[in-house]
């Protein structure tokens, strides 16, 4: 349904189309809305499947509310990571090290030495470790001229190694009640983890759509040479993007540590793939220059809802991974189709 909306080109200034309703819907401003609508449809479909397969669960309003929050809570840490990842991908890069940065930040924040400084010290440590490691990625890529894929792949290996070294390969239990309470606290009935996700998504949306930083990110990702000629310090900006991704990882590390009441070097396994996949099905182009935060959030929610749907139906993880893979392929195919149809229309 979203594709038919794009099939007609946006009205040109020379010949404005009459009718205010249709023109907004087909305008460029509505493009993200149209794109996200597909994901909303998928989400609704998944929930309908859940209702059909487990009607006895969905007939209990308390359970439905709990389930809604469970899905959001399980999406919270990966959602925060995906916001950072979306910025990096829009800026023309990729960050394969996010899972490893979470593990390093989580492990560093839960060492006995750090825990002795209390919750503030733990949060500070996780965020500083995340930002610093992210900036190291950025420096290697911007100034060391490493391909992002290689630089962050190297960081993936190195950061997990350092995390294993620091933790002595043990699971480090967090004995800090304030940190552990993050996962159990509710404010006005809404879990704190969900609120953190909401704040990060809102901040990401404002940063991308309402600030020069966001505009520059799109410009750098769309055409770095043009961005450079337009006076943007492309190298510095790229470095900041990886720092931003690292910051998100630091926040996610605290959220995940709180949920698991512990941290270890193997935590957040394969988060990089989940975050990239969520960003892509949310409509972010891997080649950079285009993407939305809200789309990425829907991408994360789709995955989290699938996990929930499979859990309540006692289906195995293998089938779940196959379905996930299928959704990624379909989402990218739809994107390509939309792009092709646009370009052929423009050629006419």
């Amino acid at each position, binding site marked *: 349904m979203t594709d038919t909306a794009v099939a007609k080109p946006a009205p040109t200034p020379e010949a404005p189309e009459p009718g205010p309703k249709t023109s907004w819907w087909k305008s460029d401003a509505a493009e993200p809305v149209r794109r996200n609508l597909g994901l909303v449809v998928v989400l609704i479909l998944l929930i309908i499947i859940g209702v059909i397969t487990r009607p006895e*669960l969905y007939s*209990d309003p308390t*359970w439905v509310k*709990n*389930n809604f929050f*469970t899905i959001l*809570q*399980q999406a919270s840490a990966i959602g925060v990571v995906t916001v950072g990842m979306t910025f990096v991908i829009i800026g023309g890069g990729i960050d394969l090290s996010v899972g490893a940065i979470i593990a390093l930040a989580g492990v*560093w924040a839960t*060492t*006995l*030495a*750090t*825990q*002795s*400084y209390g919750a503030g*010290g733990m949060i*500070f*440590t996780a965020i*500083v*470790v995340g930002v*610093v*490691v992210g900036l*190291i990625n950025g420096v290697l890529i911007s100034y060391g001229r490493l391909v992002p894929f290689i630089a962050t792949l190297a960081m993936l290996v190195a950061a997990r190694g*350092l995390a*294993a*070294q*620091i*933790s*002595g*390969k*043990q*699971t*480090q*239990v967090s004995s800090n009640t304030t940190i*552990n309470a993050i*996962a*159990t606290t509710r404010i006005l009935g809404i879990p704190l983890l969900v609120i953190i996700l909401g704040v990060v998504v809102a901040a990401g949306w404002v940063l991308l759509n309402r600030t020069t930083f966001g505009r520059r990110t799109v410009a750098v990702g769309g055409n770095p040479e043009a961005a450079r000629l337009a006076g943007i310090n492309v190298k510095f900006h790229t470095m900041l993007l990886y720092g931003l991704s690292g910051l998100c990882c630091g926040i996610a590390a605290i959220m*995940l540590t709180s*949920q*698991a*009441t*512990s*941290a*270890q*070097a*193997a*935590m*957040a*396994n394969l988060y990089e793939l989940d975050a990239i996949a969520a960003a892509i099905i949310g409509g972010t182009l891997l080649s950079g220059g285009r993407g939305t935060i809200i789309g990425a959030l829907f991408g994360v929610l789709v995955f989290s809802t699938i*996990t*929930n749907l*499979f*859990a*309540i*139906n*006692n289906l*195995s*993880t*293998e089938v779940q991974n196959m379905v996930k893979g299928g959704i990624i392929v379909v989402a990218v195919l739809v994107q390509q189709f939309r792009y092709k149809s646009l370009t052929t229309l423009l050629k006419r």
Partner: protein
Amino acid sequence: MSSLSRRRILFGGAAVGAGALLTACTSNAPQENTQVNTDNEEANPNAAPGQKVIIGFSAPAADHGWIAAITNNAKAQAAAYSDVEFRAVEAGADAAAQRAALATMIAQKPSVIVMLPHDGKELNSSGLEAMKAGIPVVNLDRAFPDALAYRLQIKGDNYGMGVAAGNYIAAQMKLKGVASPIIGEIAGIDSLELTQERTQGFNDALKANGMRVANRRAAEFTADSGQREAAGLLQALPKMDALWNHDDDQGIGVLAAINQAGRNEFIMVGGAGSKAAIDAIAADNSVLKATVTYSPSMASSAISLARLIGQNKGMSDLVELQVPKEITLASETIVKDNAAQYAKLGF
């Protein structure tokens, strides 16, 4: 441990370079790994110092608390004997690296080799090579297919673990008078043979009691994956009677998810026997009521038996004059009443 925590040093990642420094202060190695009282000569004639034995040891780099405990236990046990010289080599990242490391070790001619192979099938040739060179091989936990490749094999019982958990849950359910209990299972990494064996044992034991698993989720042996899968399982089963979690390390996350969901209407059984789990069972303040062992104490036993093999002695309680060829440890069930006895075996 508290003395370490008081050692306040620079924290917070002023630079990643400080990592090594931090590591030194935060090592979580258990303080006491000696698990058998070895200097009580009256009780055990074998404890008396004898002929000097050089034990070569090789285990994979630890990626999990259990493997870390294997290496720590072996080291500590060897240190308890005045007549044992312990030589450990890094097994490296994979089977090939471990083969290379073992080739070097065989050339040095230790009295006995104790190894936990990356993979029993892939390290079979190294076992054969050592045996051919006249060095007895003690295989820890991952069996060689070839009986000529080892002098002694000591391993845990994954199937038995599942059976022990199933039997405990069945007995508890009968005690409570629950006729058809709703049982959940949180497994480890599903592609591993050991996970499948554990699940098989669990299912068989439940089936014998006319029970079955209502929902099974597979985690990844990590706390955060345990939390994730448990959160899903708890949503799937709004009312549950019993839960078996395969691994106590991931159980930290499973217990966290249970607390976060505010659930306590069921009993939970753990797996492997970590220190945290044993402490929780003893304290009896959570849903965790039991854990079934797959104890890394087998590394301590392996070192003790390697010493006896090196000294040509048998096990004092057995009539035979030599150490047996195969030992499969029984999976034991730790509950509140016997938790104190197991406290020192936790990892």
